[in-house]
C-alpha cells in the first residue's frame, strides 16, 4: 500500500506543483500574490468543458485553446490594470477578482458541477499490487511536460533572462533596457495560463464547480510556501511533498484529520527550515 499511496500522492502533487509554480513565478517577477489562482484553475476546467461541448472534437485542442485564452487575458489584465497598482494593492486586487470570477463562473457555467468523463483512456497498468491508472499517468505526463517547458522558458530563453533579471532587481533590469512592466505582465499571464492548463488537464478525471478552486488554491499556497515563495524549483518540490503528505496522512493516520495534521505539520516545518531555504527573503526564479 505504501508505494500505491506514494503514487497517488505524486499524481495529485504534480498538479499542486504546477499551481505553486505559477504562484511563485508571478510573485518572483511581479511581487504579486495571486489569490485568484485557484479560480483560474476552475476557469480553465470550465472553459475546456464548454469548448468541448460547443465544438466537440479534440480535447487537446480545447484544453490548449482555453489555457491560451486565460493566459492571454491574464497578460492583458496584468499590463493594463495590475501594474498600475502598488505591490500590496495588486495582491489585494486579486482577492476581489477571485470573488468576481466565482460569481462570473456561476452565471456563465451554472451552479452545477461539470466534467468530461471518458476522454482519457480507461483502465490501468498493474505492476504487482500497484495500480497505475491511465488517467493519472496521462495527467502526470502533461503536468511534467508543462513543468519542463516552463523550466526551459525560464532558464534557456531571452524572455527567461528578462524574467530572472526583473525578479532579481527590477530597478537595475529597467535601467538595462528591459521593459519590466511587459515582462511582469507576461509572467503573470504565463502563471494564469499554467493554472488554467492544470484545470483543463484534470477535468476528465475530476469535476469542477464555481467554488472548486478555493481549497485547491490554498493547497497551492501551502506548496509555494513550503518551497520558499518565489523559488520555482522549491514550488515543484513543495507541491509534490504536499501531495504525498496528504496521501500518506489519509492512508496511515486518518482522512478525518488529514488537513489538520498536514497543515500544522507544514507550519512547523516551514518555521524550522533555515531561512534561505524556506522563506522568500529575495525572490528568485531558479
Amino acid at each position: 500500500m505504501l508505494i500505491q499511496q506514494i503514487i497517488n500522492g505524486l499524481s495529485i502533487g504534480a498538479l499542486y506543483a504546477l499551481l505553486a509554480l505559477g504562484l511563485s513565478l508571478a510573485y518572483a517577477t511581479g511581487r504579486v500574490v495571486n489569490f485568484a489562482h485557484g479560480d483560474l484553475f476552475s476557469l480553465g476546467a470550465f472553459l475546456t468543458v464548454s469548448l468541448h461541448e460547443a465544438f466537440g472534437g479534440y480535447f487537446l485542442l480545447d484544453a490548449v485553446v482555453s489555457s491560451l485564452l486565460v493566459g492571454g487575458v491574464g497578460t492583458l489584465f496584468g499590463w493594463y490594470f495590475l501594474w498600475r497598482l502598488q505591490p500590496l494593492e495588486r495582491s489585494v486586487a486579486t482577492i476581489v477578482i477571485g470573488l468576481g470570477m466565482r460569481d462570473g463562473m456561476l452565471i456563465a457555467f451554472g451552479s452545477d458541477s461539470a466534467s468530461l468523463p471518458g476522454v482519457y483512456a480507461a483502465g490501468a497498468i498493474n505492476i504487482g499490487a500497484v495500480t497505475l491508472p491511465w488517467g493519472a499517468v496521462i495527467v502526470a505526463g502533461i503536468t511534467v511536460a508543462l513543468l519542463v517547458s516552463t523550466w526551459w522558458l525560464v532558464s534557456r530563453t531571452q524572455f527567461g533572462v528578462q524574467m530572472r533579471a526583473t525578479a532579481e532587481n527590477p530597478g537595475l533590469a529597467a535601467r538595462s533596457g528591459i521593459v519590466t512592466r511587459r515582462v511582469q505582465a507576461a509572467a503573470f499571464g504565463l502563471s494564469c495560463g499554467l493554472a488554467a492548463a492544470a484545470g483543463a488537464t484534470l477535468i476528465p478525471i475530476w469535476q469542477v464547480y464555481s467554488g472548486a478552486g478555493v481549497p485547491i488554491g490554498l493547497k497551492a499556497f501551502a506548496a509555494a510556501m513550503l518551497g520558499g515563495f518565489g523559488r520555482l524549483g522549491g514550488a515543484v518540490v513543495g507541491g509534490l511533498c504536499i501531495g504525498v503528505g496528504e496521501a500518506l496522512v489519509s492512508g496511515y493516520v486518518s482522512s478525518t484529520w488529514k488537513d489538520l495534521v498536514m497543515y500544522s505539520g507544514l507550519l512547523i516545518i516551514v518555521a524550522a527550515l533555515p531561512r534561505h531555504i524556506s522563506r522568500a527573503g529575495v525572490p528568485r526564479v531558479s
Partner: protein
Amino acid sequence: MNKRILWWLLSAAVTLVLIGGCERKPAGSRDHTIGMLAPLTGNAARFGESQRNGVQLALDEVNAAEGGPRFRLVIEDTKSEPSTALTAFTRLAERGDLLCVFGSAASLDVPAYLPMVDKTQLPHVVPVAVLPTITESGSTWTFRTALNDRTAAVQMAEFAVKTLQADQIGMLIEDSAFGETGLHFKRRAEELGASGIAVERLKRGDLDVRPQLTKLKTQGVTHLQFWGYYAEYALVAKQMRELGFHAQLMGNQAPVNEKTLELAGDALEGAINICLFVPTDTSPLRAEFAAKYTKRFGQSPDTWAAQSYDAMRLVAEAVRNGGTNAVLLREKLKGTRAFPGVTGELSFDASGDAQPRSISVVEVVRGKFVPYSR
C-alpha cells in the same frame, strides 16, 4: 417631459405601490401565497432545481383545477449556504402573508432556520432535505415528505447484509452532519453481523479520494457504502475505476439523478442506491407523473422532484379540506392519512416524518437508474 408632470407621475406611482402593499386579503379568499426556500445555486443546486420543478408542476395543476384554491409561489434562493438560508427564511417570514413554507432541499440549510419556524408559526413542509434532526429536534410545525435519512441508512444496511450478503463493508462518508447520518448504516449492518466497518471521510469539493480508496482496497473491502452528495459520488466511482478497485459501490439517496450519471460517465455502471421514487417505474400514477414532468422540463424526474410534487399536492389537498390559515393547515397536515402520492402513501407520524414507505433500491444499468433486480 415637463418636470412637474414627472413628479406627479412619480408620486402617483409611489402611492399606488403603498396602497397595494397595505392591501389585505379579504377573508375567505381562495388565493394563497406559499413561500419556498430552495438551493437554486451552490453545491445542492441540482436538488433545488428538482424541488422547484416538482412544486411548480403540481402548483400549475392545482391552479388549473376549477373551483379549487389557487396558489402563488414566492421563492428565495439559499445558495446551499446555511447563513443565507436563515436570512432567506427571515425575509419570507417578514412578509406576513404566507400560508406555509417549503423548506430548503439542502439538508444543512434547514437546521440554520429551523428554530425560527416554530416561533413564526408557519407550517414548514420539507420536500427534499433528509437530515434526521429536521424532524427529530422537536419542531411542531415541520412536516417532511422526503425520506428520513436515518431510515434510509437502516434500510440500506438491511439490504446490504441480507440481500447482498455483504460482509467486508467499508464506508466513505462526507465529513459533515449530512454524511454522519450514514453511520446509522454502520451500526445496523454490524448488528446484523457484518464485520467491523472501516469508515473513511471526504470533504465536499475534494479533488482526490484515491488515498482513502487505496486504504479500503488494501483492507479487502468488497462492498463500499458512500454517504454524501452527487458530485463526490461520481468522483468516488471514477477513482475506484482508476485504481482497479472492484468493490460493489452502494450509495445514499442524494446521488440518484441524471447529473451524477453525466459526471461519472460509465464508471457508475452497477452501482446501487436507495431512494423513494424510480423514474423508470411503470405503475400508472408514477408513469403519468414522469410523462408530464419530462414533457414540461425536458428531463426525467428524480426522487426530489417527485417528493416536491407530492408536497405541493398534499398542501393543496389540506387547504381544500379547510386548512385555509396557518393554524388550520397544520391541523389538516397532521391529520393526513394515506395520501396517494407518487412516492407512495403518505401519513405523518408524531415527529412530522412521512411514515416509512415503499423504499426502492435502484441500480445503474446501461446509464440509467432502474429497480434492482439481480
